[in-house]
């Protein structure tokens, strides 16, 4: 596909003397491979993940881009497999993303959202987030944020569903060339006297000379290496376990499965994300040792431990995890019966009644009976029939099994490049998505940041094009970096700090958390973070917006969130003296910031709807002996 017509040079003006070099020579057929061995492109996107495909989609949907630019996307994998992805209904992939309303609005604007199979997506209408040590909890619902429950705060979507939609959308734009099953062999710089444009050499023998090279090629980005853009970051010493969870539907007296749950354990957060009435997605971030022990366990053991991880007091979880680790180390892996017994015993020691919402051992019994035959459970309701136990909605539905083949894990890291635009010998390059930044998944922001990058870059390219700019030039790309870099960095820092404060074992932090003094504060911060996960409705963020440009309050919000966490850290040394007064003060400050951004719910700044109930018991928790009163059923 050659979109650049061969340039039969048109010598228009007459004055012959002092003709420049360029026009004395007959012009080469620059666009054909035969002449110089390469094809001319305007944009080459490396990477066919969600970010790369979304960029191709956004560019394809722009008329001015279609008419003026030759866009190609290079992907090593087989995109036709993704295009023809046809999973069984109810069998969900383990790679899901919660797409904020802003991300959805972008995809709708581009026209790609229509191709998403809505049946396979689920709105998050409510979130329950709580501290693993103090059990202080916040919950908020879509209505609090001025959103309808139909919109939800975000929409869980399988990555395959999104990628398939983008590919189907791209089918309508044959101008965008998709080169799949093809790897980038090397990227070299064209000769200086030819402008030093990037030459992308593919393993099928083709070479693309491109005006702009976009790295949407993930954490180990070859484009980034070519551009010599340094990045900084660290590994979290944390592994994220993902799986598709199978569970009973919620009972007749309960709300549907549209609530996301996240518990911040000292080893990392565990999250339950609803996909359908009977399926949900797990993201359990934990220490690598424990992760590999969990992955090596029997699936029903893992299911039992997932249920327990949302319910049991932290002290008992630590005990259970040690048992798993020991078993793993000694080669004597715990059987489902053993783990059920352990959980049952821990529940008894905490005086948790078998019928209470805090109990999960009976579910393990059911798993034990059923093995992996999730489908066979149909009709055998052990938890949800009739009147549910009090507080049932404080916890996710009990997991009965894991969808076979969906348990996987990956290491977590923080990474941010020093810049998004290549300069000097790496000029005409730009990075988007994971190639530019990787972030802890606890706030579900990774893909959303990538899509925001893509939206901004596509707009930037379109603007430059309309002004006759060279879209590969620094001048043309600068607005992209200006708009995205700090916003991303703010969000990433806030998420990073959240992770650190919740996994901290530093004595003052743990002390503060265990007595619940700082909890208000921290939870306000979490709340701010999660509100952003939710995002606002399109029309909401024009509230303080200037004319024309849409004003996203995201960055301001994350700044508020980050400040909140910083205050916690800074306050740790003084918090013992100042006590609640300080916590309230900082919390109030954050609340005011939220209010200014138009985000704060109309309720009081006290985020902890159930905190009062937990506060008295939690102080004992750090001693590790007495289970908190609050976990006792109140029947």
């Amino acid at each position, binding site marked *: 596909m050659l979109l*650049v017509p061969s*340039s039969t*040079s*048109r*010598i*228009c*003006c*007459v*004055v012959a*003397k*002092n*003709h*420049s*070099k*360029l*026009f004395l020579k007959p*012009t080469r057929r*620059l*666009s054909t491979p035969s002449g110089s061995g390469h094809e*001319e492109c305007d944009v080459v996107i490396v990477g066919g993940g969600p970010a790369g495909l979304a960029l191709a989609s956004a560019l394809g949907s722009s*008329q*001015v881009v279609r008419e003026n630019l030759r866009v190609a996307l290079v992907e090593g994998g087989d995109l036709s497999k993704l295009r023809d992805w046809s999973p069984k209904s109810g069998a969900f992939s383990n790679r899901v993303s919660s797409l904020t309303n802003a991300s959805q609005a972008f995809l709708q604007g581009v026209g790609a959202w229509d191709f998403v199979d809505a049946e396979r997506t689920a709105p998050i209408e409510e979130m329950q987030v709580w501290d693993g040590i103090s059990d202080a909890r916040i919950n908020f619902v879509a209505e609090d944020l001025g959103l309808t429950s139909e919109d939800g705060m975000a929409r869980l979507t399988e990555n395959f569903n999104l990628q398939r939609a983008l590919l189907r959308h791209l089918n309508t734009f044959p101008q965008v060339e998709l080169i799949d099953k093809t790897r980038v062999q090397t990227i070299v710089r064209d000769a200086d*006297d*030819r*402008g030093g*444009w990037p030459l992308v050499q593919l393993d099928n023998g083709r070479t693309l000379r491109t*005006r702009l090279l976009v790295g949407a090629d993930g954490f180990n980005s070859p484009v980034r290496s070519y551009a010599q853009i340094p990045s900084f970051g660290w590994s979290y010493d944390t592994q994220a376990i993902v799986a598709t969870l199978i569970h009973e539907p919620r009972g007749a007296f309960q709300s549907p499965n549209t609530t996301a749950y996240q518990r911040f354990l000292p080893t990392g957060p565990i999250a339950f994300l609803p996909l359908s009435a009977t399926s949900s997605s797990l993201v359990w971030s934990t220490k690598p040792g424990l992760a590999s022990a969990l992955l090596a366990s029997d699936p029903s053991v893992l299911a039992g431990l997932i249920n327990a991880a949302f319910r049991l007091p932290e002290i008992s979880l630590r005990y259970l995890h040690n048992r798993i680790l020991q078993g793993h180390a000694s080669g004597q892996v715990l059987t489902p019966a053993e783990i059920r017994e352990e959980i049952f015993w821990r529940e008894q020691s905490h005086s948790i009644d078998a019928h209470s919402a805090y109990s999960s051992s009976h579910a393990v019994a059911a798993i034990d009976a059923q093995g992996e035959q999730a489908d066979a459970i149909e009709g055998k309701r052990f938890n949800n029939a009739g009147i549910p136990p009090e507080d049932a909605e404080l916890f996710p539905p009990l997991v009965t099994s894991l969808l076979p083949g969906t348990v996987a894990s990956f290491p977590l890291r923080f990474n941010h490049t020093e810049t998004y635009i290549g*300069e000097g010998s790496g000029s005409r390059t730009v990075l988007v998505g994971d190639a530019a930044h990787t972030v802890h998944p606890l706030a579900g922001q990774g893909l959303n940041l990538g899509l925001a990058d893509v939206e901004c870059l596509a707009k930037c390219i379109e*603007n*430059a094009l*309309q*002004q*006759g*700019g*060279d879209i590969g*030039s*620094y*001048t043309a790309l*600068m*607005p992209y970096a*200006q708009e995205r870099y700090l916003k991303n960095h703010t969000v990433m820092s806030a998420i990073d700090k959240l992770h650190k404060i919740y996994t901290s074992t530093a004595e003052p932090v743990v002390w503060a958390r265990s007595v619940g003094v700082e909890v208000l504060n921290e939870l306000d911060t979490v709340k701010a973070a999660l509100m952003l996960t939710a995002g606002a409705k399109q029309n909401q963020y024009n509230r303080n917006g200037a004319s024309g440009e849409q004003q996203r309050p995201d960055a301001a919000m994350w700044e508020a969130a980050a400040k909140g966490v910083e205050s916690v850290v800074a306050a740790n040394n003084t918090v013992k003296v100042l006590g609640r007064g300080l916590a309230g003060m900082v919390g109030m400050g954050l609340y005011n910031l939220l209010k200014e951004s138009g985000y704060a719910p109309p309720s009081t700044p006290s985020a902890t709807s159930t905190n009062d109930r937990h506060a008295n018991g939690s102080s004992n928790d750090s001693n590790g002996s007495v289970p908190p009163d609050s976990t006792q059923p109140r029947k």
Partner: protein
Amino acid sequence: MSLRRLYSTVNNAEIAHFSKLSAHWWDEHGEFAFLHKMNPARVQFIQQKLKEIHHDDHPGTPAPSNSLKGLDALDIGCGGGLLSESLARLGANTLGIDASESNISIASHHASHDPKLSRSLEYQHTTSESLLDHPKRYDIVCSMEVLEHVNNPALFLDTCAQLVKPGGHLFLSTIARTPLSDFLTIFLAEHVLRKVTVGTHTHSKFINSTELVSFFQKYPRSKPKTESGSSSGELSTSPSDTDTVPWISPHSPANEPMRTQAEIRGLIYNPLQANWYLAPRGAWAAAECNYLFWVRKPLV
């Protein structure tokens, strides 16, 4: 005749100055960073005016999405070709000329990297006066940040004006001769920030927008030719023998010419975003420093 034309407005010292800097034209972080950033605003202004005039001339018909497509454009004093490339990319058949040979070779070399430009862009090392010897006239004549560097502004404006087709457009950008411009463009940019090489600008050669307006209020003049140019600053109208309708109505106020005849728009630099913006139409004091000027040649 041709010798007179070749050297009448070109200032040799200025040409030597820019020739020395020519290698830096395409360094987006270097000497000409300001111009790189200014370029989108210039193009924006050109497009806005063309669209607006299209709307006036053909009421009811939708303006083409790209108002420059197919037009003949001339960029006088093209330097490294920053504006010429943009005009060519937008589909104008563009000729960029410059009195500095090294500028032209840099511009040609740079354009040769870009396969999109070879069809619509051409460069010549020549002067605007020499082009008058040829019959070709242009829909758009641009001369950006040049006026303040020429020897005889009145003669230069006359030449530019003669190269415009009837009904065509002349776009200029330059710097007003005000205390503000002295402070910003010379004291700050050249001496304090050192963003621009010292000696690039001479304050006395700056030209105010009102002077441009009053020039075109009396242009063209039907009185006999005067060979000598006036001194800088004071613009006297140079002759042209073809037509006599003034480009700007003589009675319109010099700071606010008729919208259909001429327009002055300020260019504002935002140091926080390191970018140039087109000042809103009629913004107060916007043309006190860098500004864009548009004037249209009458159709008759």
